[in-house]
């Protein structure tokens, strides 16, 4: 068996049990309901800021955008202003597409090779990773924003509107929020890819499986609470509002499943800044995407540019003068 996903799977399961037993058996509601969440948010904020500041502290000495279309050149040649922008406005549009629509991933292709008379390499559009990733991220975002109703009173109208849209498919009682199952299914799809696609399996580390299992665990516990075990929602809001207003309270009657859910979320938050999940911040800072392709048109400074040894023309001529004169090449010094 593959320990690269078995260990993370076991770890997530143990984390779940830890919280569940910790609350149900040992009565550690304060630890899992107050201390860990605060600690996690703190670690998340400090870690995230530190990481981004660390990146920002490094220089961008050269402008090296990856250009994916025609450059701006002669007036009659049509430039691709989005994929090969030469202005900040173009860069902005490129980044918006990149961040909100995963444009580069949208381009993804799949290569295949047929060993036959043709020996043809063929490329087909590979849309599933894009669909999976987009569904995963948007569902996650929706779920996250939806949760703000637990931390706000009154609930802002934009959150209420989001809930309305999310619940527009009227199914069962309580009404179904589409984002929940979509998040779970998308995460399962991404996990399936890692396990069953030979190439992706080969490159995957435990650090790739762990957050997936964590998120699957979070989504599953969340869905279980909402649709199946019917937790005490008033109690939960009491607790979350307590956290949000920095006057924590532990209500009666909220079970271990809720604390396990919160604990998994806390682990995800704390883990975030030290992991690959930081791509969330990194995508904004990627120098191949967020710079204009105007390197020949405008001068850019390299903050650490230093002088180097060069072989000067004078040295060159000194070395070859006789041969140059003999060949009739012009020289600066005749002797």
């Amino acid at each position: 068996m593959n320990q690269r996903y078995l260990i993370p799977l076991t770890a997530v399961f143990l984390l779940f049990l830890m919280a569940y037993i910790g609350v149900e058996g040992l009565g550690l509601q304060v630890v899992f309901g107050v201390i860990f969440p605060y600690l996690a948010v703190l670690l998340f904020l400090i870690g995230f800021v530190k990481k981004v500041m660390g990146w920002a502290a490094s220089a961008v000495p050269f402008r090296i955008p990856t250009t994916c279309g025609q450059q701006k050149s002669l007036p009659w040649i049509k430039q691709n202003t989005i994929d090969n922008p030469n202005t900040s406005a173009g860069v902005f549009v490129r980044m918006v597409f990149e961040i909100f629509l995963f444009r580069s991933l949208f381009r993804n292709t799949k290569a295949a090779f047929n060993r036959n008379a043709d020996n043809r390499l063929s490329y087909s559009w590979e849309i599933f990773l894009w669909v999976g990733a987009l569904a995963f991220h948007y569902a996650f975002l929706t779920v996250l924003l939806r949760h703000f109703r637990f931390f706000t009173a009154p609930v802002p109208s934009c959150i209420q509107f989001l809930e309305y849209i999310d619940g527009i498919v009227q199914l069962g009682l309580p009404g179904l929020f589409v984002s929940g199952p979509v998040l779970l299914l998308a995460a399962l799809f991404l996990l399936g890819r890692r396990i069953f696609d030979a190439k992706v399996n080969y490159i995957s580390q435990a650090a790739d499986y762990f957050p997936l299992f964590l998120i699957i665990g979070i989504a599953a516990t969340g869905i279980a609470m909402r649709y199946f075990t019917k937790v005490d929602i008033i109690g939960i809001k009491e607790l979350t509002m307590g956290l949000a207003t920095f006057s924590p309270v532990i209500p009666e009657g909220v079970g271990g499943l809720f604390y396990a859910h919160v604990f998994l979320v806390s682990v995800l938050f704390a883990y975030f800044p030290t992991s690959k999940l930081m791509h969330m911040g990194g995508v904004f800072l990627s120098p191949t995407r967020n710079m204009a392709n105007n390197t020949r048109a405008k001068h850019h400074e390299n903050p650490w540019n230093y002088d180097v040894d060069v072989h000067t023309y004078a040295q060159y001529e000194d070395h070859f003068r006789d041969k140059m004169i003999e060949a009739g090449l012009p020289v600066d010094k005749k002797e």
Partner: protein
Amino acid sequence: MSDELTPDEALDKIDYSPRSKGEPSNWLDTTKSVQIRPGMYCYAAKADSVNTLGLPNAREWNPLDDDWKLPEDWKEILHNGIKERLERFRTFKVFMDVCVRCGACADKCHFFLGTGDPKNMPVLRAELLRSIYRNDFTTAGKIMKKIPGGQRLLGARDLSLEALKEMWYYFFQCTECRRCSVFCPYGIDTAEITIMGRELLNLIGLNIDWIATPVSNCYQTGNHLGIQPHAFKDMLEFFVEDIEDITGVDCTPQFQKKGADILFITPSGDVFADPGTYTCQGYLILFKYLKEKYGLDVTWSTYASEGGNFGFFTSHETMKRLNAKMYAEAKRLGVKWILGGECGHMWRVIHQYMDTMNGPADFLEVPVNPITGTRFENAASTKMVHITEFTADLIKHGKLELDKSRNANRIMTFHDSCNPARGMGLLDEPRYVIENCCDNFYEMPPNTIREQTFCCGSGAGLNAGENMELRMAGALPRANALKHVHEKYGVNTLGTICAIDRAALSTLCEYWVPDVEVAGVHELVGNALILPGEKERTEDLRMEPLPGVEEE
């Protein structure tokens, strides 16, 4: 050549499923079994060349030996080198942190497509270095290595000799073509990681000779082949004789002429190796035409006689040292601006690095084409124009008399060179020139051209003879697309604007698509251009009968 694989044997080896090859399930395990295999690597840098440049640890060594004669404190040197580069390059730092291993890049690399070697997946090439980075430079790494099995969970490993050898092997199996970066959702550019990796390897004297010796030659002599000034002049004069035989016109160029309008710099591959030489003849014919018709004064220089910058494959510093000659010579000669020939990585350096490294070139003028009046706004600061931009402008304004029928035997397709395509976006200019010099033009399939173009497999200093198996495998995706248009439209000529392409693709065509020739875009211009006072041409620049002539 007998120890080389036949195309059939090479094709038999291709399998994109890492598991089926008996690869260990975790690539972190494989460092001890790194097999540096002849045919897949280039010879080690010669001590002399490393010495000339004053780079560290010059010595004779052999990658096949156990002992690479490294300096005693090599780990410390590399550690400090990584640290320094993390601060100097945001690209490096961000790219070390943000990869999610989604696999979008996995089947984009021509070396992976041609060999099926899982470590040629761009993500894994980067992970080789990233695993060291995680281990030594991240908080998680520092904690996890204290826990038994923690390194494995994190995908981290110690900087061991095996890991170093593996990095050397695979960083010199990357042509820095950037195709993977087009598909990466975070724009992670494996070329950038390879560039850092190679810089680091250079700190302990681990380069390949096909890079180190050209760099040393460029530095000393001005061009990568070490052609001395008088010989450089001789070579161009040899072309002049050929052109005179073909056209009856003397196209003798000028050298180091002070006060000329334009300094012209092209890769020395164009001066030295077929079929680049025909492209070079095309330049000579064009400049003669412009001189006669419009009085344009173009000069060549034997000092700045290399556009190609092999320093780019060594370190940023070496790149700057070689590139400096272009501005120095332009300043000394007092030209207005610089025109650059058809070359791939030369143009990436000019476009993305030169102005920042060695500029601002305020002693030059913003390039204006004196014949058409076009101001090259996109080159306003660097003051260097690509010859296809220049020629396309001339053609658009009707300034060139072209006889397309002389290229009627050429059924063309165009290979976008990686660097101009993905580092500048020079895509339509060369196509415009080709279409105005030739009636028969067909594109290769969309996934293999423009920004998705496939590398020739020999770029970034890997164009040696000893790594032929690697080169042919890397060239397969390009060749496969070419074969498609060869069979479908009868394409017999692959146009390109890169000197390495002209050398490398000729060899790859021989291997994979034997009936296709490689030509630079300005070879077509040279054939089609009607020189004032020329005799009736019967031969093209290759001294083969012009279409229609052979029947008479």
